[in-house]
């Protein structure tokens, strides 16, 4: 079996990502097309007059056939032109860039806490399988996972923001004056997201670590007189990480969707809230742009996870002799 070396694999995955994005753009466009009525009716609502409808249809060139409008929309996107927001009458792109940046900030911070926290807890649980700490951890993370994130979010607001006044209830990041402010405001949404994500990774890390600790190579490493720390971190951990990374990748993908709810709960000006508000205001170009940006984020997260898995596994990263 010949396995491609890493650069070629990355190029292949990148090409596949572009293809996926193309398919996503088709779906996003068709989804909006398939809704009852045409775009002008959806934007203006029931009270619209015939004249205003006709004017809007001309403005949006809705009389053109759908494939032509799709091609025009896609052509614009390729050049960085996502159209103009109907509500704000500003280019969609400038909006999305800002909102996407803030979503990535929140998601990135959540992952930054999530990865060491859940792997660390997994290792702790694996140290004494079925011991008291293992059982307590399993129970705690499962409870965290089974409560929906908006309930966790609202509970945290009640407890930590209203009662204890440790954190602000809303993550109005536009008003942050320093980096410390940003961290302070993002604490509750980050904790909320981690509640939902931790259980699976802890479980995966725990199980694969328990397996790896029983392996011949870990036994031999310690029989060669290596220090316990070296055996744990050089021989055991890297080989136990693959399932954990897959689970983290699934979480990161979930995060792209889960963050929408959390952004709304904490009134955080991210892409998720932008999407929800654009739907409320029937801002079709903005909906399309935001949906496409979220999909792109989703695809990028999976690409990064794939590459990380490849880098960790020499069997995938080198050719077999």
């Amino acid at each position, binding site marked *: 079996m010949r396995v491609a070396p890493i650069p070629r694999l990355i190029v292949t995955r990148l090409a596949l990502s572009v293809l996926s994005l193309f398919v996503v753009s088709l779906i996003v466009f068709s989804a909006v097309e398939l809704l009852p009525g045409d775009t002008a009716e959806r934007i203006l609502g029931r009270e619209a007059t015939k004249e205003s409808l006709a004017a809007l249809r001309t403005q949006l060139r809705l009389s053109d056939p759908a494939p032509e409008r799709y091609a025009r929309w896609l052509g614009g996107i390729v050049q960085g032109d996502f159209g103009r927001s109907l509500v704000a009458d500003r280019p969609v792109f400038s909006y999305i860039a800002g909102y996407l940046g803030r979503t990535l900030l929140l998601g990135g911070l959540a992952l930054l806490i999530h990865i060491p926290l859940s792997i660390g807890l997994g290792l702790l649980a694996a140290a004494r399988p079925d011991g008291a700490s293992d059982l307590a951890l399993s129970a705690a993370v499962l409870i965290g996972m089974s409560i929906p994130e908006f309930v966790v979010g609202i509970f945290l607001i009640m407890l930590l923001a209203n009662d204890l006044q440790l954190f602000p209830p809303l993550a109005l990041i536009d008003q942050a004056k320093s980096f410390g402010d940003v961290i302070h405001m993002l604490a509750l949404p980050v904790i909320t997201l981690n509640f939902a994500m931790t259980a699976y990774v802890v479980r995966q890390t725990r199980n694969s670590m328990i397996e790896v600790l029983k*392996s*011949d*190579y*870990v*036994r*031999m*490493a*310690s*029989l*060669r*007189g*290596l*220090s*316990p720390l*070296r055996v744990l971190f*050089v*021989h055991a951990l*890297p*080989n136990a990480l693959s399932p954990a990374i897959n689970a983290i990748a699934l979480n990161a993908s979930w995060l792209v969707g889960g963050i929408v709810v959390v952004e709304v709960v904490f009134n955080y000006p991210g892409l998720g809230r932008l999407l929800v508000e654009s739907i409320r205001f029937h801002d079709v170009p903005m909906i399309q742009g935001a949906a496409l940006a979220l999909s792109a984020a989703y695809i990028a997260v999976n690409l990064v996870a794939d590459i990380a898995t490849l880098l*960790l*596994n*020499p*069997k995938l990263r*080198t*050719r*077999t*002799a």
Partner: protein
Amino acid sequence: MTAAAHDLMTVASLTVDYRQQGQWHSVIRDLSLAVRRGEILGLAGESGCGKSTLASVLLGERRGERRLRAGSVQFDGIDLSTLRARELRRLRGVRLALVPQNGGASLTPTLRIGSLFAETLRAHRPHMNKAELAAEARRQLSQVGLPDPTGALARFPHQFSGGQQQRIALALALCRMPDLLILDEPTTGQDAMTRRGIIDLLIRLRLSSRMSMLYVSHDLATLSEICDRIAIMHAGEIVEIGQMEDVLLRPRHPYTRALVASIPRLEAPPDPALLPASRRTPERITA
């Protein structure tokens, strides 16, 4: 010479229990055994007789589901069960090494062969620099007959065949020239060429060094090629121990007799009654 000076590893009245479903069961019973300095001692017995457990206890391994109920294990006068983890670590790899049955599985998949050697050498000799480490690893790899030792250092375990992985595992065990090398079925499941290569290397080593070896196997034919003495283990006990030839030619215990009778021959012997008288030969035993 006194017995202590004569023997490198001494096992006295050892009883080892395993816990299974809350109950302790003995897998080794009142076992006494000594590995003499410079000898190759064979330890034969069917699977499940406690050979691997004994090897593990001799390496000072401790497990939660196992206990040493009675007896002692002494390595060069040191009682292994009283050693602290740090002291035990100083013996391992340097004075006491294991060649496992499945060499491939014993090599960490995420590390290159060069790193495995470097960390093993460095664990006990921290001052060695990169060039010295690489040179030493190359020397060890060529000693076990691995082709292209220089290229091998940069490769990962999965890039070698099963036979090559076994040679690498052997080279890793030998790289500090231990006083006692424990071999746990090192040729089982290997192809004939690898098996031959490993046996020849062990014979050479024995001639060139004073290394003691405990060769654990269920394969009497292999043991008969290299061992000075052999111990026959059955159901957690040593039922017979003696010079290789004595045990093979004049087995006393019924279990030893059955084991000797089951040594595989190169071809199935034809029924002597059907052969012409000139080809009728007495039963042969490779010794």
